[in-house]
């Protein structure tokens, strides 16, 4: 948090500096003396403001190599004609605002984007509309850049022929805020990105992941909304990631997860809502994660925890109406469950301390069977399965002994 705040201040400060140093900073308009953006751009020097007026511009690739402010007036359209990368940012301190960018090129070799930021710092991309692009916004080797309140839409069909909405690679201290991304491969993609924040974004109907994290340590994402993405959200090979107040909804499919945590350690997962996913959270090789105050509702599996997960702590989570609250593929459990609310709990609370008097075993025999034998899903809700589950509850024999919440809550946890 502090890092991002600092970047904000830093950026504002630098902009101020720019303003004061270049006293002669001027504003240039397209349409009057300059008929093209490129011509206007030629006339710019660092610190100038270039205002693009209403109209449709087909100028191929526009390279911005000066620290200028690029403003769209009445939503001018920059069309890449499905051939060009539209804007290439190759200077620090560039601001791009209020543009409509569409139809960037499709050459798969060099990953063209509507706006691509090359190895520069403190770029602000705000309030733009990106339509039908290959990559939307592409940041590489960037620091302290901000991507804010953009609408990024595409209607791509095939995963291998489509790019990501916001693609960030080897960057640091980014802020990705308030964007709406749909129809891309991944909504937001992070690889080797550190100390960054993803906040208040909406990613839905993307082909693969709403959010895709890899090797990106010390990041946080808050209050984002991920709905109906091909495979949900994936956070992989990452340390110290903070995930709070996000909503993961309706990520349905064979290998779809509300949230996939693969090789994650020391994370913090709190206050998230997982609704109507095939699997709410899938833990694979993830250790030392604190999972608290989350809501798991109406999922196929609330949580699936592979046996290679250790030392995770789950407390004060609410489980409602999931087909299976939890399942695992092993017999050994090295994770801790405490004071969660399970709507399937049938115990009682004689001493009225709001905690059930008998422990709850969230793992049903049937979920173990299905884990080993996926086709057994066919027998779901058949009488014989009900019978097996009941007998297992009375006399546990196949489910892991220590997979247990010793203090199940009688009422759902409320914040």
């Amino acid at each position, binding site marked *: 948090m502090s890092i991002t705040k600092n970047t904000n201040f830093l950026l504002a400060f630098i902009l101020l500096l720019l303003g004061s140093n270049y006293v002669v900073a001027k504003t240039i308009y397209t349409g009057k003396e300059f008929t093209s953006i490129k011509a206007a751009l030629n006339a710019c020097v660092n610190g100038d403001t270039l205002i693009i007026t209403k109209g449709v511009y087909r100028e191929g690739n526009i390279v911005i190599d000066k620290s200028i402010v690029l403003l769209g007036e009445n939503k001018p359209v920059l069309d890449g004609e499905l051939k060009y990368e539209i804007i290439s940012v190759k200077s620090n301190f560039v601001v791009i605002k209020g543009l409509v960018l569409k139809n960037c090129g499709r050459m798969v070799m060099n990953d063209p984007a509507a706006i691509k930021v090359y190895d520069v710092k403190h770029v602000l991309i705000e309030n733009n509309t990106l339509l039908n692009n290959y990559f939307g916004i592409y940041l590489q080797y960037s620091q302290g850049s901000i991507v804010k309140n953009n609408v990024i839409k595409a209607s791509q069909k095939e995963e291998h022929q489509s790019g990501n909405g916001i693609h960030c690679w080897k960057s640091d201290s980014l802020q990705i805020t308030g964007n709406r991304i749909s129809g891309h491969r991944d909504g937001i993609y992070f690889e080797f990105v550190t100390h960054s924040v993803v906040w208040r974004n909406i990613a839905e109907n993307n082909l693969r992941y709403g959010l895709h994290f890899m090797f990106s340590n010390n990041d946080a994402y808050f209050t984002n909304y991920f709905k109906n993405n091909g495979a949900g959200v994936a956070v992989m090979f990452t340390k110290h990631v903070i995930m709070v107040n996000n909503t993961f909804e309706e990520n349905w499919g064979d290998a779809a997860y509300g949230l996939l945590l693969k090789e994650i350690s020391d994370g913090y997962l709190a206050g998230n809502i997982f609704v109507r996913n095939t699997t709410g959270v899938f833990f694979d090789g993830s250790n030392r994660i604190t999972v608290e105050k989350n809501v798991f509702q109406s999922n196929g*599996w609330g949580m699936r925890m592979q046996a290679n997960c250790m030392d995770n702590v789950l407390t004060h989570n609410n489980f409602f109406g999931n087909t299976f609250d939890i399942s695992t593929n092993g017999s050994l459990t090295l994770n801790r469950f405490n004071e969660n609310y399970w709507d399937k709990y049938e115990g009682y609370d004689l001493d009225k301390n709001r905690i059930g008097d008998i422990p709850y075993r969230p793992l049903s025999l049937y979920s173990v069977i299905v884990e080993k034998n*996926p*086709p057994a899903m066919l027998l779901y809700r058949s009488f*014989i399965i009900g019978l097996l589950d009941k007998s297992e509850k009375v006399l546990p024999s196949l489910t892991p002994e220590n997979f247990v919440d010793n203090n199940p809550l009688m009422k759902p946890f409320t914040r």
Partner: protein
Amino acid sequence: MRILKYVALDILKNKIVMAYAIMLALFSWSAFGLEDNASKGVLTVLNIILLTVPLMSVLFATIYVYNSNEFIELLVSHPVKRSMIWRALFAGLSLSLVAAFILGAGIPILLFADFATAIMMITAGSFLSVIFVAIAFLSSILTRDKAKGIGISILLWLYFALLFDGLVLFLFFQFADYPIEKFVVLMSALSPVDLCRILILLRLDVSAMLGYTGAVFKDYFGTAGGLVVSYLLLSLWIIVPFMMSLIKFRKRDL
């Protein structure tokens, strides 16, 4: 047609059918009324559809067919086709039991469950009623002994409602190492109860059924084509036992 009218009238006035409808209504209303959310109520009603409805249908139909022996004899001495009598009995029993099911359980289901689920449940319940009437016809034509016939009916019910699933589970464990998804889908066609359960579940627990094997099931049952095939299979479960019983009935000495 006139026979059908009288058979249906006779069965509808039968106290057991009325009691059955009332019992279904009681269970369904209380299931929806007592459970705090509708989805739990739906599950209770699902169990009624999958267990009670088949049992009731098969038992009542078996007993009714045995009790209609004299009635059949009466009609047979008149200028009526034998197959007409058997068909009328079958149609009368099916219609009455379906009517009892819809009146008893259908109305609360429609009121409390969401529409698509409700329609699927009512369709499945109606199918199961008729299928088990057909099975009852087959078992009651197999033997003249009423007690034996009822025994066969109960055994068949037991098999479809309970034993079959156990068998399938056993097969899962035996062949856990093989890709048996498709085989399993085929297996499910062998039990009308399972088929109905899956059809309803595809509506109810969409998220879970869409999981690993869910994709396979969805491919088979979830598509419009799959639905048509499922309904065809269910219809076969009506037609095959009934036609077998009809052929036997035509040749039977009364």
